[in-house]
């Protein structure tokens, strides 16, 4: 399949650059880094869902979908976020030990990121 312009989303602890740290939670991330995999351009979008008492993961998934995300790579997806992203046709990838956004991006380009399964949190 022909890969044209893809929008890769990575949760970030702050608005910044490729050197910014990855946030360890999808729904509660402060910002999302959107990387255009065609041009390597990066832009940051504030996660307005992070402060919600309830449904942060769903809100964050909605934001990603609305911003035209194709792929999300993160450490922890709750079951609702996973379901919402999947319903939007967004590919969900698991991180393992990447700390900086640039590390995630290079591992993504090298095809090292595995597809995520529905995250923990559903069985509380």
């Amino acid at each position, binding site marked *: 399949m022909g890969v044209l312009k893809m929008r890769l989303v990575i949760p970030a602890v702050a608005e910044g650059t490729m050197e910014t740290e990855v946030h360890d939670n999808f729904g509660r991330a402060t910002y999302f880094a959107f990387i255009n995999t065609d041009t390597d351009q990066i832009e940051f979008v504030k996660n307005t*869902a992070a402060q919600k*008492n*309830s*449904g*942060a993961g*769903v809100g964050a998934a*909605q934001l990603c979908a609305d911003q035209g995300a194709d792929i999300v790579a993160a450490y922890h997806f709750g079951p*609702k976020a996973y379901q*919402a992203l999947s319903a939007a046709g967004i590919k969900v990838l698991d991180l393992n030990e990447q700390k900086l956004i640039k590390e995630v991006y290079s591992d993504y380009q090298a095809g090292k990121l595995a597809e995520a399964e529905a995250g923990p949190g559903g069985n509380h």
Partner: protein
Amino acid sequence: MAEEISLSILSGKGGTGKTTLAVNLALALENVQLLDADVEEPNDYIFISPEIESKEFESVMRLIPEVNDDKCTACRKCVDFCEYNALAMMLDKVLIFEEVCHSCGGCKIVCPEAAITEKEKELGKLRHDALPNLDFWQGELNTKEEKAVPVIEKLKTKVDRDKKVIIDSPPGTTCPTIEAITDTNFTIVVTEPSPFGLHDLKMVIEMLNDLEQPFAVVINRAEADSDYLIENYCQEEGIKVMLKIPFSRQIAELYSEGIPFVQKLADWEEKLQQLYQEIREEALK
């Protein structure tokens, strides 16, 4: 007939002895109704009616939205309205997350296409057992459900004012606790003589003062060398400590076997009856 009162039993944190006091007090008295409103983990039944889960139950329902995709134009008004992110719009289709829905019905009202209807979903259950002298009710929240308050509201419709009503409340200071103690004449706060116990006691007392709810304290797992933690605080604040249940191996063992200690240990029936008299006098002041 003497005027009966309703009493709620509360603690700042779980595991302090609410169940111990509620169950033993209920069994020490006559003409009692015990309602277990700790709906996230009701456990009075272990001591009162161990087989209650095999009995018939009454469902507590709530409403959740259903979207007719043929009528939906993907305008997003419902998604934007929902404060709890119970709805999402993915590829022009509404997704519903039932667990986080607060059943407010707002999405149905804002939908300009009348594409949203509501359906009933079981939120929890009420169980009942009528023992001699003790009318027992239990509220229980279904697994994966988060909203305890409607179950407690429904449970409270069973209150019988002709009986001595005892409500075993959920621990803490959140909405379910407030729902459980509202409309009761008096509250007993159970605490334990530890720094944690004192900390959580203070939180509960702050809440009770805000609610202008009359209350007194019972110390569970009381020990001579640590009770001062609670007693000093209560004395400074002018709060009555009405009873101490000692930290005793015998009481703990009976509890672990599901046996109410009032049935085994001498004097306790009388002590608990005296406690109730004192509560009643305070409540009717």
